[in-house]
């Protein structure tokens, strides 16, 4: 009996954790953080999106702040990429960002040599352009009103 109860609770726990993680990812109730309340260190990292900051939904601000917290630990080349890509990243729709994260996680599951092969293939196909620089495919000016907070 106790084992059945424990199993039931374990299943419920797993479902709850999954549900809460998904809900937190795009919770429209997440309050916005005004730019002046963003810690100075993170403001520096988030400078490229400062003009749009106050129009972003709270959940997106939280994720960007989460990413910006890693900024001090980044290598110079990583900081450069972060700053160069942030504006276009923020301008993507929530679905595009979700798709990009899924693909990125899928890539990380491959063996290192396979990851390298795919990266090289993509870079070659895109003419050896500077992959650190942003390549706008979506809107360069984010339209937050069209991005539904889901």
């Amino acid at each position, binding site marked *: *009996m106790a084992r059945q109860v*424990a199993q039931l*609770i374990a299943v419920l726990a797993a479902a709850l954790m999954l549900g809460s993680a998904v809900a937190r*990812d795009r919770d429209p109730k997440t309050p916005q953080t005004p730019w002046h309340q963003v810690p100075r260190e993170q403001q520096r990292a988030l400078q490229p999106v400062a003009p749009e900051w106050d129009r972003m939904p709270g959940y997106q601000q*939280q994720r960007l702040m*989460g990413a910006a917290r890693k900024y001090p630990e980044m290598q110079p080349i990583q900081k450069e990429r972060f700053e160069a890509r942030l504006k276009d990243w923020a301008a993507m729709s929530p679905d595009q960002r979700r798709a*990009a994260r899924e693909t990125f*996680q899928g890539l990380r599951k491959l063996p290192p040599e396979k990851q390298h092969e795919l*990266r090289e293939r993509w870079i070659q196909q895109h003419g050896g352009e500077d992959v650190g620089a942003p390549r706008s495919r979506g809107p360069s000016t984010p339209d937050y009103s069209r991005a539904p907070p889901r």
Partner: protein
Amino acid sequence: MNEKEFASRLKPFLDRAADQVGEVQATKLKSARLRALDAYREPVRLFGLVPVAAGTAHTIHYGVVQRALLWLPIAALLATLAIQSMNDVDDLGDLDAQLLTQELPPDAFIDQDFRSWLGKSHS
């Protein structure tokens, strides 16, 4: 022989035996019947979740440690959710930071060709 026929054949024997039951035995039988009725319980739900057969829940006597063990998964769940809520933004932010700082630009990951190559690599 069906049930009714069997009952009608059995009844005279039972009636005859019942006539021979003494006062003491009759009192004992009556007492046993009342005890059985008293012990009967409607099925209950443990923690409101698991249905337990009649009377079972009332006859189980968990010790303090056993009760604590029963509640342990719930305590673990609540603790995990609390920790998760604190770490979640950090974890998600970490993923975004890694995505933004690795070799390929983010739009490579929404590129149909790249996604198709990746799908083939996984299969």
